[in-house]
């Protein structure tokens, strides 16, 4: 039940049009942009995308027409505000939106991961996220009688995660904040992991408490250095903020987006070629090395 180690294009070819796909799960950290761009190159469309705050990834998928539904708490550009492709697509009715809060999308995936039909929350009630939706239920807690909201499980076809390192089997070391990576991985039918490095299984096993994802959840594992650019990856590279700002300026119009995509998505064969287009200095110049930890017997 180990994952297949394979190239990015092969891994992405497993994702069918019409799939429900959770991504951008660590919030502004380690966003799987390489997978997003490969989805566009392969023309996978009619996607239902699921996530908390997607910070450009969803805007790019939407801009290229790959998305029919968005289930998310926030879609935009954290450096600059508006995601114009998202905004236009919603206003024109090209995509439908199921509005969530960050916690409601987290709980929906956590319910899926836990294998229960729903999870209760004290959030949502009193908001239009609750009122203008038929996805949630209000109920009286049978113990104390308080009114609470129930968030039904979401079980995506795919969760996509970019991590620092993974074994060829699909066991994954991930550090820095993880947002809702673990709920999404637990809830998803399939998981695609891209990693800065594929390492010997002994590296992963030297620190089992660092393992955030184990192989039986993982369908494909792909070595994909720089796979999260322009988002940051702890221990690997910083955020390319200028890229976010340029994207914001370039994609206010549909034709501007097409120009952007023709360079950054369709103008490159793969992630290695993509990396040659990036000229920002994102290097970690002040590394912090984690204090030693031992296991053993």
């Amino acid at each position, binding site marked *: 039940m180990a994952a297949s180690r394979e190239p990015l294009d092969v891994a992405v070819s497993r994702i069918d049009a019409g799939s429900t796909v959770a991504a951008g799960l*660590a*919030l*502004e*950290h380690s966003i799987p942009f390489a997978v997003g761009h490969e989805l566009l190159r392969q023309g996978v469309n009619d996607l239902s995308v699921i996530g*908390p*705050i997607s*910070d450009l990834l969803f805007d790019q998928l939407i801009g290229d027409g790959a998305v029919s539904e968005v289930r*998310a*708490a*926030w*879609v*935009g550009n*954290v*450096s600059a*505000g*508006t*995601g114009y492709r*998202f*905004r236009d697509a919603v*206003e024109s009715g090209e995509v439908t*939106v199921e*509005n*969530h*809060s*960050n*916690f*409601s999308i*987290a*709980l929906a995936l*956590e319910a899926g991961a836990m294998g229960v039909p729903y999870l209760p*929350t*004290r*959030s*949502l*009630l*009193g*908001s*239009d*996220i609750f009122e*203008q939706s038929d996805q949630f239920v209000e109920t009286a807690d049978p113990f104390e009688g308080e*009114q609470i909201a129930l968030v039904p499980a979401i079980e995506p076809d795919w969760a996509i995660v970019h991590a620092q390192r993974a074994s060829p089997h699909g066991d994954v070391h991930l*550090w*820095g*904040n*993880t*947002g*809702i*990576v*673990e*709920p999404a991985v637990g809830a998803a039918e399939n998981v695609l992991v891209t990693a800065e490095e594929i390492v010997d299984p002994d590296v992963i096993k030297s620190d089992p408490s660092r393992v955030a994802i184990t192989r039986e959840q993982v369908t494909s594992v792909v070595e994909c250095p720089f796979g999260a650019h322009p*988002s*940051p990856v*702890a221990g690997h590279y*910083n*955020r390319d*903020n200028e890229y*976010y700002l340029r994207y914001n300026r370039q994609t206010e119009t549909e034709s501007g987006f097409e120009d952007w995509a023709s360079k950054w998505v369709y103008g490159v064969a793969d992630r290695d070629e993509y990396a040659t287009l990036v000229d920002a200095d994102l290097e*970690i110049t*002040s590394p*912090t090395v984690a204090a030693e930890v031992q296991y053993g017997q």
Partner: protein
Amino acid sequence: MASDRYTDRELMVTTAAREIEDGDTAFVGMRLPLIAFQVAVSTHAPDAMAVYESGVVRDSPADGFIHTMCDLPNLDRAVATTDMIDIMSRLQRGDIDVGFLGGAEVDRYGNLNTTRVNGEGEDIRLPGSGGACDIACMAERTVLLMPHEPRRFAEEVTYVTSPGYADDGNGRNNHPAPGGGPSALVTSKATFGFDERGELYLRSVHPGADVTDVLAAFPWEVRTAEDVGEGVVETTPEPTDEELELVRTFDPDGFWT
């Protein structure tokens, strides 16, 4: 700009920072609050902690500018980098003292809209809630931040992304949200409080701003501190030199401020 010593947004940051009390756990989101927490913990609130919904917990400023909560300087030397369920659980169990919220629209009860607005007859889609709805529902108190623009002050917001108080005069008493509700609205011209009924009132005007002018931006008659028995309308304290220096250390290129 009201002063040549500081920008409107620098004043908003230092005013927001003062809303964090020492020992508070603050729920920090995007933009100005990223800077405000760092100012607070460097000045009057050395024992404040910040949590960020991505999973970050910090007790100190980042050693470098941060565009987002997940920029590496915010992760590096954090107290913890964990996950959203952990952070939101702290919020849900009542452990968060203060949260910060922005908004495209606010009404007199502090209900906020960041989802969609009507502009010249057509719907304009905004990014959405993020964690704002959760913070609004569950933090002990919230501080709202927005530019002082008439289009942002609405008799009724188009969409209640982040609930404030009920309109029944009972604030949060009969409201389903368990948190305490908004305690302040900081705009680029003034600071407002909320009375015990949950209605907005003018607490202070920023240096150089005029009460009449400030209130003219609202489509309803906004009450003042005098009207609600909360003393007089003060002038918002200016940023101190130390505060300004800190703001400019944390945001050296004025990206957010």
